[in-house]
């Protein structure tokens, strides 16, 4: 467990030192979300109707951006070997990496999602549900993303392969996340959608690091 925190704090320190990368993700999210009013027109009815979908899709794409470097830098400079020899099982390393991805990418996106939804004129009564859905969904993005990143690690054109691998896996999260917010704005109960997201999180929490750990072992071989 101690090594887990050491890996996490090492990754957070590195992200802090390369703060521009974190900021780039956030800016990407804000900029892509602000393109929609320009393309669709500023009519509050239309925008408010599709706001949850915009927030979710933009958050999903923004979360993909740093995945390429999540393990890539460590593989290139030999740090990954040392991580795997630290005494922590490979799935522990992967779990720590997923946690750091969420803290550095998921959490800032979660904080920015509220203002973006308001900017897009999303009805107020759906806002808490949207954020609750993202609270459950953003760790799922990190977990699936970590798994995908470790699987394509060491492959040529890994950066191109990664979205092709991760996006299909993540579509259920997108569907139920956006549907929960839609249900809340439409006066229906978002509970079933949120419960399904919670169930997915409960399954992905142990399974994704396991798969990612196996991917890491294969990548260093």
């Amino acid at each position, binding site marked *: 467990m101690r090594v887990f925190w050491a890996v996490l704090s090492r990754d957070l320190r*590195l992200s802090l030192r390369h703060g521009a990368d974190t900021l780039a993700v956030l800016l990407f999210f804000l900029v892509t979300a602000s393109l929609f009013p320009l393309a669709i027109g500023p009519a509050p009815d239309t925008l408010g109707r599709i706001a949850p979908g915009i927030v979710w899709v933009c958050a999903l794409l923004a979360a993909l951006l740093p995945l390429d470097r999540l393990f890539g830098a460590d593989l290139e400079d030999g740090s990954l070997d040392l991580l795997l020899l630290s005494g922590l099982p490979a799935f522990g390393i992967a779990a720590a990496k997923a946690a750091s991805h969420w803290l550095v990418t998921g959490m800032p996106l979660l904080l920015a999602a509220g203002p973006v939804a308001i900017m897009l004129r999303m009805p107020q009564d759906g806002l808490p549900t949207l954020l609750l859905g993202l609270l459950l969904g953003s760790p799922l993005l990190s977990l699936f993303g970590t798994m995908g990143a470790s699987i394509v690690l060491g492959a040529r054109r890994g950066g191109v392969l990664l979205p092709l691998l991760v996006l299909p896996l993540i579509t259920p999260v997108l569907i139920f996340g956006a549907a929960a917010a839609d249900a809340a704005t439409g006066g229906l109960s978002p509970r079933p959608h949120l419960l399904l997201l919670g169930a997915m999180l409960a399954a992905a929490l142990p399974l994704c690091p396991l798969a990612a750990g196996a991917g890491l072992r294969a990548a*260093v*071989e």
Partner: protein
Amino acid sequence: MDWGINVLAAEDIAVFRGERLVLHDLSFTVPSGGALVLAGPNGSGKSTLLRLLAGLVRPAAGRVLWDGADALGDLAGHGRRVAYVGHQDAVKPGLTVMENLHFAASASDRPIAAALSALGLQALAELPARMLSAGQKRRLALSRLMLSTAPLWLLDEPTLGLDTGSIERFGTLLAAHRASGGMVVAATHVPLPLPDAAGLRLS
């Protein structure tokens, strides 16, 4: 640090890299306090053998034994017995010299300052690692050995780029490690400061 008496043994090791059989029918033992120097031309499998002993590469046949028991069954547990210095330095250019060692130090609670001064890096502690020369980066990678509590040191060309003073200093660290019962397996093209080490020539 005292580990008691351990024995590392390899039995009829064979390893494939891609389609090519780089190592086959390889057996050796390294006892506590012992050292094994791997020699051979480029591509003869020296680095592969070191990575195999670290548990990073799987053997196609044969076994690696630690005190007579299969070492690669519990890879995470085996990782704790191993301090590995690969041909890459694993130095993060954005962190300072000291911060680069935080992770290695967190596992063992050993002082970073002592590890830095053992390799003569104490004056550079606060410098970003991107400012270091190749030899200084190598010394930084070697200073991780001082923070490790592992009995088995696996070194891939450890003295690459080091000046004579640093090689001498590194020699005393190797001698101290072996005197306290540690083992060293090193791949090299140049003579290492390892007196009465066993040799293994790969072809």
